[in-house]
């Protein structure tokens, strides 16, 4: 600590001239102008740390549980009916809602197939998002293609909604030549250049402060180029990840640096086996946002319209007043096991899961809405499910047979440029392959022996 204080002091010494700080880089210009002093006889405290707090002679400790719980925003109920009939229907075209529904359905069908494939040993790992497709699709639908996403690992539907194809998914899962990650990352750790979705990182919560940083970068870039469309960062994580220090660091830095980022917490009730009751105390993740001075809302994650509307408003707020962070806590229930490494019936009742599955999940709820509006029926459902399943299986078997990435990718990207050692190794490998062509079957690799060039 003391060394940090020293550093701070020397840093302060170097910025003796206020001009050294460009106004562009500070949230509030003229920081030195806001000097505070306690006035005699004032009825409120004016210390730097609390500028408008009234003095009181009553000693009372605040207790979160005495306060009403933060309400949960919803648009439609579990029967697919508008809750507040006095408001108009959601401002979305039928066509778009059908796309949402199909995207949710595609991911849920892919999940079933791939979970089974993992059980058969055809890939090492998989994670499904059953019960949480609504949060992903509803929020991603409120983004523009230029917005940037940092996801955790249960956001396949965000990728689906933003144009990731079955071929992209399968290419990554089977580490073939269609994998933009070149076979280097664990299954479900997708990534895409445009619309930009940063490659998933396994260690929990690392993406949250990074999202604040990326949002800060977008803000700077947009300030330098006032004609371009304003962009935000959307950052996804679970309520378990919100226990990591990174979450708290991220909210604080995003708030103090006014970063245009929307944090979306999927509160699905479980972090692997740990239920929320043992994960945190207090009123959910939303209450944390309020504490950090961040605009916060809690929504019904099974209601795709509520998520979408909240995200649209969050995006607007994130871009107002030069940028600020927003927190959305979307409530849901993790119907699935945590991952293929988990059997959740060891720590929760099967009947509880079945209940949620049957009674209320985002897909069933949206289906009811669509049926109520006459946009969907059982025949369409069967037909769509069949064709989706076929499409998934087709891409699956093609991906298994697809060529592997070219040989050079075994050496590239450890650094921006190939090291001398790697170059020498590639040359040596090429020599061996050319000297003993019959010893090595290069047909499974894209471009065969030429893949080293």
């Amino acid at each position, binding site marked *: 600590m003391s060394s940090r204080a020293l550093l701070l002091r020397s840093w302060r010494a170097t910025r003796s001239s206020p001009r050294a700080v460009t106004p562009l880089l500070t949230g509030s210009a003229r920081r030195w102008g806001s000097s505070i002093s306690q006035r005699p006889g004032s009825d409120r405290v004016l210390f730097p740390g609390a500028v408008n707090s009234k003095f009181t002679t009553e000693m009372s400790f605040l207790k979160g549980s005495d306060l009403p719980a933060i309400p949960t925003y919803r648009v439609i109920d579990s029967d697919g009916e508008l809750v507040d009939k006095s408001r108009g229907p959601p401002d979305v075209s039928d066509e778009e809602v059908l796309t949402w529904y199909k995207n949710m359905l595609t991911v849920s069908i892919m999940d079933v197939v791939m979970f089974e494939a993992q059980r058969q040993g055809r890939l090492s790992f998989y994670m499904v998002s059953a019960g949480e497709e609504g949060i992903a699709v509803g929020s991603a639908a409120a983004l523009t293609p230029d917005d940037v996403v940092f996801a955790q690992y249960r956001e396949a539907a965000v990728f689906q909604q933003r144009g990731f194809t079955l071929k992209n998914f399968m290419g990554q899962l089977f580490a073939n030549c269609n994998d933009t990650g070149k076979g280097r990352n664990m299954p479900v750790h997708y990534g895409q250049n445009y619309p930009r979705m940063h490659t998933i990182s396994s260690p929990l919560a690392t993406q949250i402060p990074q999202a604040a940083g990326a949002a800060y970068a977008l803000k700077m870039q947009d300030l330098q180029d006032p004609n371009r469309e304003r962009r935000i960062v959307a950052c996804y994580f679970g309520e378990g990840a919100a226990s990591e220090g990174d979450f708290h660091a991220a909210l604080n830095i995003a708030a103090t640096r006014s970063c245009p980022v929307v944090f979306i917490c999927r509160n699905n009730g479980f972090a692997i086996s740990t239920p929320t009751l*043992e994960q945190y105390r207090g009123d959910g993740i939303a209450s944390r946002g309020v504490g950090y001075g961040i605009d916060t809302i809690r929504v019904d994650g099974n209601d795709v319209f509520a998520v979408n509307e909240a995200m649209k408003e969050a995006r607007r707020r994130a871009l107002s007043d030069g940028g600020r962070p927003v927190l959305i806590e979307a409530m849901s229930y993790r119907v699935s096991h945590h991952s293929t490494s988990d059997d959740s019936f060891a720590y929760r009742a099967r009947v509880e899961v079945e209940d949620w599955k049957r009674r209320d999940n985002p897909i069933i709820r949206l289906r009811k809405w669509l049926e109520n509006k006459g946009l969907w029926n059982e025949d369409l459902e069967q037909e769509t499910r069949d064709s989706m399943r076929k499409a998934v299986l087709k891409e699956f078997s093609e991906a298994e047979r697809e060529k592997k990435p070219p040989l050079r990718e075994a050496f590239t990207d450890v650094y921006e440029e190939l090291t001398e050692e790697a170059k020498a190794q590639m040359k040596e490998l090429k020599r061996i392959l050319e000297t003993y062509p019959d010893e090595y079957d290069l047909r499974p690799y894209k471009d065969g022996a030429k893949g080293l060039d």
Partner: protein
Amino acid sequence: MAAPRLFRPASRLLSSRLTTLPLRPAFAQSALRARGYATEGGVKEVTVRDALNEALAEELESNEKTFILGEEVAQYNGAYKVTRGLLDRFGPKRVIDTPITEAGFTGLAVGAALAGLHPICEFMTWNFAMQSIDQIINSGAKTHYMSGGIQPCNITFRGPNGFAAGVAAQHSQDYSAWYGSIPGLKVVSPWSSEDAKGLLKAAIRDPNPVVVLENELMYGQAFPMSEAAQKSDFVLPIGKAKIERPGKDLTIVSLSRCVGQSLNAAAELKQKYGVEAEVINLRSIKPLDVETIIASLKKTGRLMAVESGYPMFGVASEILALSMEYGFDYLTAPAVRVTGAEVPTPYALGLENMSFPQEDTIVSQAAKLLRV
């Protein structure tokens, strides 16, 4: 400890030729007794997972200052089931589930150790301990020294280390060299079931912070366990290596899962080339059993270090440096290292296999070294 030149066990070994002083007599004897590979009778096949479980249960039973905490350790029986049944047996005060806050629960464990308890802190994998490495190193390892010796830190950090199957760069790192370089920490790395039980128990009993680097790929593997090792008083000394296979032509020094690979490679070397490789299971990374390595090297004249860490600044690099410092005149060929590749671990199976030493890598490098 291996670090300061003056105290290096190997330097004592060299000087012992000049003096009549016996070499750490008490320690050596007790070590031999404790290692006892007893009778054939009563030998039982035990998996590494069960051996670890047994060690934890015995220590929780015999020392009420111990408790275990970590993510999923209680209700779920541990992510890899190492803590199976412990919650039922010892209750929620001794077996504690934590929120997903590595920095939080590691800090809590270090604090409990500084206050006099003997916590056993489980990481779901050592990869996740990077979130709390400041607590392990800056507080766990150093407070005893910085407090002038008034604050003990009897803590055990444990969990799976190194690569597993298909879990890629962020889940496949070997931390032996990282923790092995820190003064104040002791570091052990078991291979077999007896290693696992004896070293974990030693770690829990040791008054210092001890890092136990297990291996996920070994958890399900069964090893014969001697009658002595099945008893609750079985402890292995920290700082003592074990010669798993005697030989006269080549010394292979290895640790953790690579010990098994080295043994298989040694068998193949014997069968193919008729050479006898001696395989040393390090067991302990810090302190490092330099005597055993140098004594073997003097006998064989050739040294190879096998590990799954990165090639540079690793355990193998340290062993080669030590062999140069203490056994240079006995080497008949330059010592070699067989290590993981200089690349973040890739996911694709073919690439993953090429990133770590395989048995044929060890055999071919040994054949090259032996010029056979």
